[in-house]
């Protein structure tokens, strides 16, 4: 389970950004979580609840936005159905994964500045 080390990295980065901007409070942290990011949303949330106590994120809401994975043909753009072989049924070219479907991104932070 690597969600704890990811949350640790997230909290540190948020605290760093808040300090840089002289924030007095952090209200929300928005994260997008790709279906193929290798991260489980529930575990991530549990790790967040455990880890944020005593940090600058203690009162911040975690907003997790799921990003679904979709495959399409690299040549003709045709959609490849879920669960199918990742080759275009029409032209035989290999598939390409949709953007951000394999990423775990810190999208934005809502903070209070004096």
């Amino acid at each position: 389970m690597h969600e704890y080390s990811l949350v640790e990295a997230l909290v540190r980065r948020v605290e760093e950004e808040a300090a840089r901007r002289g924030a007095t409070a952090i209200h929300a942290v928005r994260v997008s979580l790709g279906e193929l990011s290798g991260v489980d949303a529930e575990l991530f949330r549990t790790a967040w609840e455990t880890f944020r106590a005593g940090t600058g994120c203690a009162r911040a809401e975690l907003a997790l936005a799921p990003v679904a994975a979709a495959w399409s043909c690299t040549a003709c753009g045709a959609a490849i159905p879920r669960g199918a072989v990742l080759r275009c049924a029409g032209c035989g070219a290999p598939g390409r994964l949709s953007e951000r479907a394999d990423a775990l991104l810190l999208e934005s932070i809502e903070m209070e500045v004096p």
Partner: protein
Amino acid sequence: MCTTCGCGDAELVPVELHEKILAGNDRTAAHNRAHFREAGVLALNLMGSPGSGKTAVLEATAGLFPGLALGAVSADLATDHDARRLERAGIPSRAITTGQACHLDAEMVHRSLHGFPWQALDLFFIENVGNLVCPAIYDLGQEANVVALSVTEGEDKPLKYPVMFQKADLVLLTKADLLPHLDVEVDRIRDALARVLPEPQVLLLSARTGAGMEAWKGWIEARRARVPAKLRLPLAGHVHRG
């Protein structure tokens, strides 16, 4: 301060970042990669479940390259058994004991290089923690990911762990010598891989009998040909941590 009416209340500011949470790891991985390329070392990250045969493949690889210098770091939660096995097979190795960590990250690999004569190597194997989940998302600075999947693990393993197999530049189907004793069809494993990876590269081999090891050797040689012998990358502004 609130700029609308000047009331003195704090202002709520949205800060847009859109950055990877693993950006810090990726920076260290890029640093490792620059080091490896500069020294002309082909670094391979070998992943797979516990018991998939990672160490056995490396033991059998030791004799394939008589003219080259091989080295490895081998990660386990506890014990240095695998590193010792590799040493006995003739591959200078260092153990990384990760404790509770279920994967290697770029910093652990970086630290393991200190005091290890990796610059003199031609092939450097990073044997990851046996795990089909966590190691997949950490870039270590390798040139390629190799995932070992033993034929005993079930035909649908790639469908159950798509993130790991999607990261594989090469899948080694290990323990091929056991096929006569199993109800496993290799074509079904290949089919499962083709559903998580657009262009799967697959080699069927047995470390025990040596079957398929020539093809594995050929794959490594082809990869090695892409790493220039002494690629001097400019490392201006390069700060060495730790």
